[in-house]
């Protein structure tokens, strides 16, 4: 049962990330490799504010979202000008920047969480408290599962509300033909600022839940592998609707779990998982380029 609850928590976390990335990939047509960076920003801000400033779950979560939304300018400002492959490179640069920051902002002699050793480098931050707010204390697996599921549902509702609105239509139009949309008097720069702020803020929510559940965070949360995994979820599941990223998260989280039953030695399991991602992507691009449940084909 605990195993299933653990899976449910992970599924909720990655569903939020996939839905957030879908806003950028599916609705703006921009491939971003920096989503894990914003996920980690959420984790670190949550960890630092709860550990060092004694914030509760909700203030820490709010701050994490705010910081990620602010840092989303690192992507949204270049997105004014860069598209296609150039934007992928920009997002890769942002991703590397985040990873380097989390990895290198350390000083072995100083206490973790201080200005000189903010992230504690590769050793990360441990002892992150479990979520607790009002009368609710998520200190057991079922309670964290419920909390993560509720947050994922809220994020899903937020996405549904926003993306089915005229704002969602504006984003789709921007993806289809930005210049034509500008010719209709629409402020596409503002739309990009908004969509990146919302998407990165949502990734930070996922990061905060992750940090509070695992109780530990290190720079690997911001690794390129993580970003690629998140992007794969969106591409395999399909973009430009709500169910695509959910299906993608489910499929790509299920594969490694199923592999556990295949009795593959641990030393190969990671590589086999990567191979399977690769094969899944190749098959997907060939037979169903719009993803399992997607509506739009990324060019």
């Amino acid at each position: 049962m605990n195993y299933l609850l653990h899976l449910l928590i992970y599924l909720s976390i990655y569903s939020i990330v996939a839905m957030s990335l879908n806003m950028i990939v599916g609705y703006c047509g921009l491939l971003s490799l920096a989503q894990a960076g914003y996920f980690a920003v959420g984790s670190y801000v949550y960890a630092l504010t709860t550990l060092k400033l004694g914030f509760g779950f909700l203030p820490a979560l709010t701050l994490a979202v705010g910081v990620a939304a602010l840092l989303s300018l690192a992507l949204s400002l270049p997105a004014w000008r860069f598209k296609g492959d150039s934007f992928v490179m920009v997002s890769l640069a942002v991703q590397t920047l985040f990873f380097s920051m989390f990895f290198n902002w350390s000083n072995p002699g100083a206490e973790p969480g201080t200005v000189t050793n903010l992230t504690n480098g590769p050793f990360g931050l441990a002892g992150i408290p479990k979520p607790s707010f009002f009368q609710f204390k998520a200190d057991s697996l079922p309670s964290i599962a419920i909390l993560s599921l509720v947050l994922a549902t809220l994020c899903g509702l937020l996405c549904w509300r926003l993306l089915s609105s005229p704002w969602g239509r504006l984003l789709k139009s921007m993806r289809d033909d930005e210049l034509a949309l500008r010719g209709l008097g629409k402020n596409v720069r503002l739309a990009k600022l908004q969509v990146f702020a919302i998407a990165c803020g949502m990734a930070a929510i996922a990061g905060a839940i992750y940090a509070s559940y695992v109780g530990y965070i290190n720079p690997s949360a911001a690794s390129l592998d993580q970003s690629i995994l998140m992007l794969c979820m969106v591409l395999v599941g399909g973009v430009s609707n709500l169910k695509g990223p959910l299906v993608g998260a489910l499929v790509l989280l299920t594969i490694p779990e199923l592999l556990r039953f295949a009795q593959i030695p641990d030393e190969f399991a990671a590589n086999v998982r990567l191979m399977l991602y690769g094969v899944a992507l190749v098959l997907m691009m060939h037979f169903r380029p719009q993803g399992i449940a997607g509506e739009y084909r990324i060019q």
Partner: protein
Amino acid sequence: MNSAQPQTHDVAGPASSSKAGRVLMSVEGLRKDFGGQPVLDNIELSLHEGEIVLLQGVNGSAKTTLLNILTGNLAPDAGTIHLSVNGNEEVFHFPRRSWQDMNVFDRFTPEHFACKGVGREWQDIRLFSSQNLRDNLAVAAPRHVGENPLAVLFRREAVKENEHHACSEASVALDKLGLHDREGSSADKVSLGQAKRAAIARAVQAGARILFLDEPLAGLDEAGTEQVLEMLKDLADRQRLTLVIVEHVFNVSKILEFATSAWTLKNGSLSVESAATVKMQLAGLSIGPVAEIQKRLPPGAVLAQKTSLNGADLLIFSRNKRTDDPPLLEVKELVVYRGNRLVLGSRDELGNIHGISFALHRGDTGLMLAANGHGKTTLAESLAGLVKIASGQIRFDGVPIEQMPVWERAVRGLLFLPARNHTFADLSVAESLKLAGINDCPQSLKLLLHRRVSQLSLGEKQRLAFECALRKKNYILGVLDEPFSALDGANVQALFEHIQNAKDCAFLICLPNQIRQEI
């Protein structure tokens, strides 16, 4: 003032309006260079309310460049633009300061011009392909509250009301165009004529008072041309919109029927004449492709055959006497689907499918005239091997080629010139010619040799495409899909010369049926 930041001050009120309407936009000393070559030099113009302008010029005369500048898409190198569509005058001075490109509040942008009532219809239409026609129009509604995510979450009633209003206006606009039954159709599934009308309506929906139209009639069939012309006349007469219409040689006369003035771009200069003067100058000139072909075929060439293929007309002009020689191209019972849609072939009452059949001999020039969406491009692509055929036979020079790969058909001498995507955007003109194996560069392309293809106008690209395709004469059958698109008179003539000189070859030319009246 050495910047593109606008100065704002009130213009004279209606009392000072001239008979032609007040000036909405004026330009002084406009200059634009590309690679050190001036394409627009000291342009002076003014645009009055209600004016309908035909903008004409040969290929590469910078018609689209001028449109791009006047709609805020491209900054000129020098000059001043005065814009006063809604009563307040804004002045943009050029050249701009270097930091102006970085200025996030820069107002020389297409979105600012659009907000000020300057609309644009693109040559390649640019509807939002993943959305239906109603959404394409509804998205253009200005100042929509629902485009603010915070309002979507916290001002639901206002958003709902705004959206209802935008959708109703879109539906009314589509209804007026006779597209009521297509409002739920995806923008990439409607015919060319419907898409062009929807694109014009979208610009009007966005609040355009000046509308710049780049070849609105290009590629349209007879019905589509009529519908778009009707719409433009209605916009001019009833809504008093100011129109600036770029058109190429075959459609100039249709625009002149209701234009009030004509701007002609030549060697970087702009001359303004009355529409009547230009009409008189054009009178007597043969401008239809069918007439051109007939005129240019060698003496003795006759209309050998006129057949109907699924409602399309196939006219075959033959230069040689019919002999018992096998045809160069023989198509028998050809059936082609696009997805589930039967495009080439017809279904009878019993459900049996009948393919299309025709033959071309050496020296023949076949003109296939059909409405948009009829399957001209599908036929051309089927012959070239780019589209899989469902059934039927294609024999080329006596050899069945249905199963033959594209490259082998080309090696055997089957040339296909597509209507679009026929050039390589990242190559220079010189590289493109070299790639096509052409050493003797045509005179008209010599000045463009070092330009990248992506920087050429559509007419120049079309010229490059047909020179690359036809000049080397390593073909015996040319399949040309809408080859006259965007070409000026001189380039049309150059294309016909290629056809005329290739005496032992056959050509199949696919054209929209708007020139049916010539037959």
